[in-house]
């Protein structure tokens, strides 16, 4: 997801403050709660982004949803965002915060692409190997794509390690075709 510069700055501010007050874990929980709520409710996202709805209504709604659930710090933070008129950026800010937190805690997320569902043992094995290679804690997510036919591809940030049957077949096709031309 493309995160704007402003969202990253807001996220950094919250992270620094949470670190200073030593409430990092609690803050993360709250942020994840907000993130989960926005992701599960498309209506909320549209509501926040809508230029038609007045800012004070947005603040009131956000307060009504989160005020009782989150810590004091996060509550104040939401109010600040509202006062700066950045509610429409809330989803980007929470995403940026999670990224920043992961970076801080040495966690990387990896996406695994497979043709068939992996069982827990296989997943654990993949996770262990990746952690050994990257020397970081790995957050795995799996995507099943039937047309990969077999093998596995792992995507960490922008880098892909590809060993799927589909990719190999495509490469083989290239080799044969380029040889045929000569």
């Amino acid at each position, binding site marked *: 997801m493309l995160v704007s510069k402003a969202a990253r700055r807001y996220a950094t501010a919250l992270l620094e403050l949470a670190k200073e007050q030593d409430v990092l874990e609690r803050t993360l929980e709250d942020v994840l709660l907000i993130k989960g709520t926005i992701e599960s409710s498309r209506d909320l996202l549209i509501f926040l982004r809508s230029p038609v709805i007045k800012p004070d209504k947005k603040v009131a709604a956000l307060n009504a949803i989160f005020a009782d659930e989150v810590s004091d710090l996060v509550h104040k933070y939401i109010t600040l965002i509202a006062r700066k008129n950045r509610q429409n950026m809330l989803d980007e800010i929470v995403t940026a915060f999670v990224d920043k937190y992961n970076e801080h805690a040495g966690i990387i997320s990896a996406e695994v692409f497979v043709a068939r569902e992996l069982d827990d043992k296989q997943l654990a094995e993949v996770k262990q190997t990746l952690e050994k290679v990257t020397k970081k804690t790995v957050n795995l997510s799996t995507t099943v794509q039937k047309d990969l036919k077999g093998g596995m591809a792992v995507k960490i*940030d*922008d*880098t892909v*390690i*590809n*060993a799927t049957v589909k990719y190999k077949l495509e*490469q083989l096709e290239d080799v044969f075709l380029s*040889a045929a*031309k*000569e």
Partner: protein
Amino acid sequence: MSQVRPDEVSAILRKQLSGFDNEADTYDVGTVLEVGDGIARVYGLSKVQAGELVELPDSKDQKGKSVTGMVLNLEEDNVGIVLFGSSSAVEEGHTVKRTNDIASMNVGEGLLGRVIDPLGNPIDGKGAIIGETVRLPLERKAPGVIYREPVAEPLQTGLKSIDSLIPIGRGQRELIIGDRQTGKTAVAIDTIINQKETQDTDKPVYCIYVAVGQKGSTVANIRKVLEENGAMEYTTIVAAPASVSAPMRYIAPFAGATIGEFFRDTGRHALVIYDDLSKQAVAYRELSLLLKRPPGREAYPGDVFYLHSRLLERAAKIINDDKVAKEMNNIPEELKPKVKGGGSLTALPVIETQAGDVSAYIPTNVISITDGQIFLDTDLFNQGIRPAIDVGTSVSRVGGSAQVKSMKKLSGTLKLDLAQYRELEAFAKFGSDLDASTQAQLRTGERTVELLKQGEYQPLPVEQQIALLKVNDEGLLNKLEVTQISEFEAQFLETVGLKYEKEMDALASSGTLSDTFGEKLIEIANSVIDQITATN
């Protein structure tokens, strides 16, 4: 057609399969955010370099081939790439794959005689490029000062008016400028054809013709002409016709320079013709505007000067010292073992002006970059003076030192005479009462101008040019009518060629016209003139 045996096929397949490794591949990717007008903006690709080639494996054009692109803009949160294929095959969300390969092409002797696209793929239907090739980047820094030498060897164009008045040396950059339909391409093609005579010497000149934004039919025609004149054997055509995308037209001259550099850095001589750079500038303007770079004068981006200066700086005469040449800057690893000194790359960029306006942005830029210009004039062209070279405004800043000795001697007076003739010609139009000396000057001038006319695809070897100019210098042509000059030229050259073959060969190799041979030439000229005047 020979039969294909099935067991052979399987043997070949097995061979290819055995070389196929089964390791996992690691590469970087990004995602297309938006696409349109040959430009795509990509999220991700965080380690990509500017100028790197990228692939879009998800996209398939009509031929089922995936689109490739080149990274031009590196921004904080996205990467701007230009697409070499059709942008309609690319959609939002497509994966973009790094190739870790700065835009480059495979270059080798196998390219001679071929027509290729700017990425080095053959497009003449003659199959793959054969022979050993090296992979060279399209963008390379020009050689530094210590690796260069002043221009000292001539590059004969075979055109009397150029070789005598605006001589070009190997390693020079000489601009060919003029309106449309003034014979710019003809000058370039004649120059390529004339390099045929160098092919038998120890210093052959290999030619590269870069067609940017021209009609496909024009490119096909040029190829036909070169083939008919036996010039295609030592020539490569880099074709980026008007039908290809702007990025292709933008990199085409760089591809031509890369091929030329291969010859230059391996101690050989090459001539590259960029036809034309105004269309490349237009392609670059298109890209820059779509990439949202700020427009400047005539909406060209700020670095359009650098676009042409870095391209033309790559034309150079390399120092004739292998040891120093091997130290040259920016030599790709693959080329290093082959590097030799003494090579050269001559560039003849072409610029098209609108209604003779040389003070437009691109013409002034390129005029200031190059070592002189050949100015072609519409009026002269319509008067039947072809090549329509305006001798007054055309200059060659460094070619003089490369000129053949006796040619230099003859051209000194020629230039002066022509300049005086032009001045008098303007006056002579008004009055008829002219003194004898003025009339004589006009008479000589008319004949000189007639002598400098030359048909298309008929380049003359330098020794024949010297012989003709010697006759002109002696004032012998005054005995003839203007209409008889071309007849005289043909007969004179034929007689000289038959009678004094050895002397002409000596003149070609030494470049000095001895007094005795000079007298003999005058003798022949007189007899030919007598013959012509007698018959009429």
